[in-house]
């Protein structure tokens, strides 16, 4: 084979290029080059006519390389690569010289622009002479989905995937599904009954044969990559078999009472418990740290009381491993703990509650069976709600959690419903109500009697015991004394989010939530292909957003992973030449995706090209030149540098 034949296409781009660069001079020079076999010019190469001309020329003229002198590769590299592919030229042999954005449009003097264009074209030609084929490789995929977290975002994600016929596993570390929404009574602004909203969705999960629910469970290991993950899940024994229907017969006989996490410590449950009647799964679980069978072996009461023989103290913890194609992280949030700011009085002044605690008091599945009560059992006559408690300050939560205002407005609604004549005062600064419906909800609350006091600096608010109740004072408003204070605390990443992100090899944002792949175009994608994020795991959001994100994440995942269809892998990956590799592992340390591993037997590094995204950082780190970044090889870049500097 002789020297590669290169074709250069010059695009006038209407007046855009031809008006600013003297293409006649350029064409003349190209014609005299030994390394250029074909020079063609077109008025508008990306037009239908231009594309046809481009393809036909390549088909007829038997060239090896193509240089398109036109616009940015970000505009039309793919267009011309595809056309060249149709003409039988591998896309690795298509180069663009960007003389429009980087020359014609930024160089007012025509002679100067022409000289610059010559160099840009020269660099592209030199680069093209040593270009190599790029192969499109593809891979079979697993189309099953793992959902981590069974709050509403995770539930809706699972139901969406299952509706498409996919097998779904939901892993939740609680003993049953539902997440935070089940701890509230009403969902603002529509004031839908939260348990009624959730019950049919839980039943749908339970009855769907495509969905497997693993509770009291956590993901302990994730291997592999997009389309081919292997996950390991550890499940703690609940000591109750699935034959349990949650009839509660054992609750009555269990002698041990423990503070309930579900009630946020405001109530108790027995050492054998469910979170709420009708939970999914229905089966109770035993708190082994409290149960007397496990602590001192003295009690068997539940075994005797159970009509189904479901208690099984010997049930082992189990670990399972299975394959999935995509993972949706829907691990929700945790609420900020106000103990760290003593001025808020939480933990020291009785009857100062957080908003989630207030929601528990107002919930029919709560510790007081929805009676809003003070610690001494009285109904409060006056309630103050402090907005932004701990939010928007560097020493606690630096951001706005967006949903606390909505939650804070519910207090008035719920108090007035139960306690006629009670007063509710919201002490606020900004009111973050982001939709017309939320604003209408606010106007209704104001109309129905919630008093709004604007504070000029919520960070300076003091909550302490006063003469006639709890005194709340701060800049910009007259102090109030009330029976009950509710702190509208913000939302933080769920406990364990950082560890989970580490397992999944995805990034977190500055506030510790999962970082989106793209903040606008792919906000339900996490920063690794095949891993998605929905609901509050991605940052504080309201329920409609959490639901939509759960559905959107799965919609994206299942439309990319279709049964029987292979997925295309990145073409411009890095590859390591085992003969040149010295086994130093600098590339392994440099790879942002953990795509490089060390083969202990051969003592060389190997790139997993299904994980590699083609950044080339490893190639820059390689001291021996063993690591090659496809399409951006050392040789190609050196050729380009030379081409730019010498005409």
């Amino acid at each position: 084979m002789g020297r590669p034949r290169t074709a250069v296409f010059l695009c006038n781009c209407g007046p855009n290029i031809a008006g600013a660069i003297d293409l006649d001079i350029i064409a003349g020079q190209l014609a005299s080059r030994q390394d250029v076999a074909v020079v063609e010019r077109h008025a508008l190469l990306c037009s239908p006519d231009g594309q046809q001309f481009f393809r036909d020329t390549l088909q007829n003229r038997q060239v090896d390389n193509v240089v398109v002198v036109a616009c940015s590769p970000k505009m039309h590299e793919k267009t011309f690569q595809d056309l060249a592919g149709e003409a039988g030229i591998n896309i690795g042999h298509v180069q663009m010289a960007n003389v429009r954005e980087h020359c014609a449009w930024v160089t007012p003097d025509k002679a100067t622009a022409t000289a610059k264009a010559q160099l840009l074209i020269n660099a592209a030609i030199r680069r093209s002479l040593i270009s190599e084929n790029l192969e499109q490789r593809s891979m079979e995929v697993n189309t099953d989905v793992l959902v981590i977290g069974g709050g509403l975002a995770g539930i809706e994600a699972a139901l969406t995937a299952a509706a498409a016929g996919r097998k779904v596993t939901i892993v939740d570390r609680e003993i049953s599904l539902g997440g935070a929404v089940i701890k509230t009574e009403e969902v603002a602004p529509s004031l839908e009954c939260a348990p009624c909203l959730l019950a049919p969705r839980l039943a749908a999960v339970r009855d769907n044969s495509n969905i497997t629910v693993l509770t009291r469970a956590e993901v302990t290991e994730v291997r592999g990559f997009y389309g081919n993950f292997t996950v390991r899940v550890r499940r703690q024994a609940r000591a109750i078999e699935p034959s349990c229907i949650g009839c509660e017969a054992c609750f009555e006989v269990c002698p041990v009472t423990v503070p309930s996490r579900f009630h946020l410590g405001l109530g108790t449950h027995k050492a054998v418990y469910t979170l709420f009647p009708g939970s999914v799964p229905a089966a109770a679980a035993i708190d082994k740290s409290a149960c007397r069978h496990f602590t001192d072996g003295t009690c068997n009461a539940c075994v005797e009381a159970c009509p189904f023989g479901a208690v099984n103290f010997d049930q082992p913890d189990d670990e399972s491993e299975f394959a999935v194609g995509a993972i949706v992280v829907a691990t929700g949030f945790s609420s900020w703990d106000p103990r760290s700011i003593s001025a808020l009085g939480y933990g020291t002044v009785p009857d100062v509650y957080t908003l989630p605690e207030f929601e528990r008091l107002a919930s029919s599945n709560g510790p007081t069976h929805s009676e809003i009560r003070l610690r001494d059992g009285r109904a409060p006559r006056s309630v103050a709600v402090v907005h932004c408690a701990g939010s928007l300050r560097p020493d606690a939560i630096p951001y706005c959690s967006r949903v606390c205002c909505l939650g804070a407005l519910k207090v008035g609604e719920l108090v007035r419903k139960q306690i006629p004549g009670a007063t509710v005062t919201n002490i606020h600064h900004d009111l973050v109500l982001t939709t017309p419906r939320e604003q209408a909800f606010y106007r209704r609350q104001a109309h129905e009697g919630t008093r709004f006091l604007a504070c000029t600096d919520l960070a300076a608010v003091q909550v302490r015991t006063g003469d006639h109740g709890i005194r709340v004072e701060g800049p910009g408003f007259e102090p109030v004394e009330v029976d009950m204070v509710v702190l509208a605390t913000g939302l933080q990443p769920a406990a364990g989010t950082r560890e989970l992100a580490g397992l999944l090899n995805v990034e977190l944002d500055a506030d510790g939530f999962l970082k989106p792949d793209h903040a606008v175009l792919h906000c339900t994608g996490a920063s690794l292909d095949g891993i998605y994020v929905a609901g509050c795991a991605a940052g504080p959001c309201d329920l409609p957003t959490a639901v939509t994100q759960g559905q959107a994440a799965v919609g994206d995942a299942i439309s990319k992973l279709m049964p029987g269809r292979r997925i295309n892998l990145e073409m411009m990956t890095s590859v390591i030449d085992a003969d040149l590799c010295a086994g130093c592992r600098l590339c392994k340390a440099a790879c942002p995706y953990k795509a490089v591993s060390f083969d202990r037997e051969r003592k060389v590094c190997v790139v997993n090209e299904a994980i590699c995204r083609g950044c080339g950082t490893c190639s820059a780190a390689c001291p021996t030149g063993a690591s090659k970044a496809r399409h951006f090889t050392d040789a190609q870049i050196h050729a380009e540098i030379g081409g730019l500097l010498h005409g």
Partner: protein
Amino acid sequence: MAEFEPKIVAFVCNWCSYAGADKAGGQKLAYAAQVKLVRVMCSGRVDPLFVMDAFRQGADGVMVLGCHPGDCHYRAGNKKAQQRFRILSRMLPQFGIESDRFRLDWVAAGEAERFQTIANEMTDRVRALGPLRIRGYVAKEVA
């Protein structure tokens, strides 16, 4: 004699800085014509030898432009670029190249004006330093 126009080679990442330069083009923000770009997928791809090669082949100044910290399309390639930049900046004077001839900076896809400013600033800075005159020496050390 015409004023000295320094030749600047800028290695720009595909996702942010190349796009920023494209946007400068779209907005017709003229900048020094001797600034020429080499596209790489990530600023982390820039091998210090590319920088040395550019000096060796006649560049008077070299830039590496990437995504802003935290915005790297490949997570943290720009961080690697920054680490390498620090080392290389300290080594350049040993080759007789003023470290001011080498610049690392960040240009986001939307920052057309910033791209223009950086290109012109770098040109002014290198113009003040004058032509790079150590080609033979560098060639021996690097080639």
